[in-house]
């Protein structure tokens, strides 16, 4: 199994490096430009109080708020895109490419195949966040003396790593849809909708009092993208809920992959019946 896990990680090596490099620019720029724009940004707080910006979770009052509302708020969305791509590509993508048949035909239980792929996926997400966190921290160390902040370098590092549970949850949901849906593109579409609805749903429902009751339905509700994250860390209950969602999605992925007819590309309910009126297919 270790060999398969290493192989799965090797398959993701280029993606991990590519996504980490690509994503590094965003937090590095947000952190790096702060000294030049600190005064202007403080003056923009009145604009940021507008509901539209509130809905987007943006606040610029201090460096801590700036980093939380930009880096911590946006990086998980971007990593979630990778989570959707890799999560749906892991089972559905490989099945469509025909690569899964040889692996499934090996004397390995299917649940082990899904588990190894899920672990590799989780490690890949963690490594991307870690690399982004390291580069962001390096940029922070370079500008630390020019800004007024209570943050230390490890706060930024941990702040970004705290987003792993939510991207893992999106990854496992994508894995599940990959095992459930007949085609990868359908799985990716549904998983993307989940990410987008979760993000905007969480922000909008936090601004509209009548929607407050449905806020817990959106996964981004459980991501603390405020300056408070750097002081107290994420709430244990939020982390547990996100990891719980990831676990449930993983279990469903195992169950549906266990039942799945590899190479067929059908919804679960399209299988297992001998219809009265039939035609030959092949």
């Amino acid at each position: 199994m270790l060999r398969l896990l290493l192989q799965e990680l090797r398959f993701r090596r280029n993606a991990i490096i590519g996504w980490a490099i690509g994503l590094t620019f965003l937090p590095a720029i947000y952190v790096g430009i702060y000294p030049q724009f600190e005064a202007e940004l403080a003056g923009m707080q009145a604009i940021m109080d507008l509901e539209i910006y509130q809905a987007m979770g943006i606040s610029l009052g201090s460096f801590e708020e700036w980093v939380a509302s930009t880096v911590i708020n946006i990086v998980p969305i971007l990593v979630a895109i990778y989570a959707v791509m890799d999560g749906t590509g892991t089972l559905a993508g490989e099945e469509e490419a025909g690569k899964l048949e040889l692996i499934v035909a090996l004397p390995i239980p299917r649940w082990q195949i899904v588990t190894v792929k899920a672990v590799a996926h989780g490690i890949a997400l963690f490594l991307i966040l870690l690399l982004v966190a390291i580069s962001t921290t390096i940029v922070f160390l370079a500008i630390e003396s020019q800004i007024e902040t209570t943050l230390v370098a490890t706060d930024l590092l941990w702040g970004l790593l705290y987003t792993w549970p939510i991207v893992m949850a999106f990854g496992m949901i994508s894995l599940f849809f990959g095992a459930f849906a007949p085609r990868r593109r359908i799985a990716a579409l549904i998983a993307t909708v989940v990410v987008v609805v979760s993000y905007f749903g969480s922000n909008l429902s936090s601004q509209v009092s009548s929607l407050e009751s449905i806020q817990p339905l959106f996964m981004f509700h459980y991501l603390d993208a405020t300056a408070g994250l750097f002081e107290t860390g994420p709430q244990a209950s939020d982390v547990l809920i996100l990891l719980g969602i990831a676990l449930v999605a993983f279990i469903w992925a195992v169950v549906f992959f266990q039942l799945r007819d590899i190479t067929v590309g059908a919804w679960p309910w399209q299988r297992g019946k001998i219809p009265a009126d039939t035609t030959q297919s092949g």
Partner: protein
Amino acid sequence: MTDYVIETKGLSVYYGRHRGILDVDLNIEKGEVFGFLGPNGAGKTTTQRVLMDVIRPTAGEARMFGKDCQKEGVAARDRVGYLPGELSLYDNMKARQFFKMYFSLQKSNTDPTYWQTLADRLDLDTTRKIRELSRGNKQKVGVVAAFMNKPELLILDEPTSGLDPLLQQTVMELVRETNQAGATIFFSSHMLSEVEVVCDRVGIIRDGQLVTTERVQDLTTQRFKRVRFKFATPPPADAFTQDGVTETTRDEQDVTLEIYEGLDKVMETAVRFGILDIETIPVSLEEIFLAYYGKGNGGSHA
């Protein structure tokens, strides 16, 4: 009690409303080379995929080594080498990396260097990335992967597909040698000539249903007889018009018939025109196959 390596009973697979296979009863004995014949879409690949638990049966059961392919699939597959028909590999890996990974994922590992022996024999460069290999060379990778663990059962879906004639011969030699070493072989093929040479028995599948399973020799001798008569007097055109008989060629006094049934009646008719010579012409497996599919002479009798 017969020692069956593969057993299916009433095996049916439906893809939605479309039938893949229906009520396939198949028994393959230990040490046999069994050829599975049928055109594209007949159900060969579906049957093999059910055995490998790649897809699940809608009805019926499939066993390998007495173990249920679904419930005890891991234990059963541990003794099997498999070459899928629609082979797709991890393109970014070198062939040797793939073999090492594939070997490590087998439970009953045998000889960790046997893949290199096989690769050398098939003249496969294992240092190249799979995406750089031609279709034929990718097929070689699949062949090596199937044979590398010296399995007790080989399930091969079109093993010589995409290979040049020399390599087709090498693969067939490999099949023979593996069989002589005690392995059972279950393979599908469109190359009826290779099936005829290598197989002990064949199964013909049509429209998802197993039409027949016979020893190759029995099939070619029993299905129909092709007889050429030379007559003293040319018989009239309708002389041999009867159920179970098809006149395939006629050249003045020479008449060739394919006789499915009613040989005695044919002989009665023939003697009336004075038989000068009579010759039984061997029937190839290909002709038998086409007859089953109604595409060759005598198809109406299939």
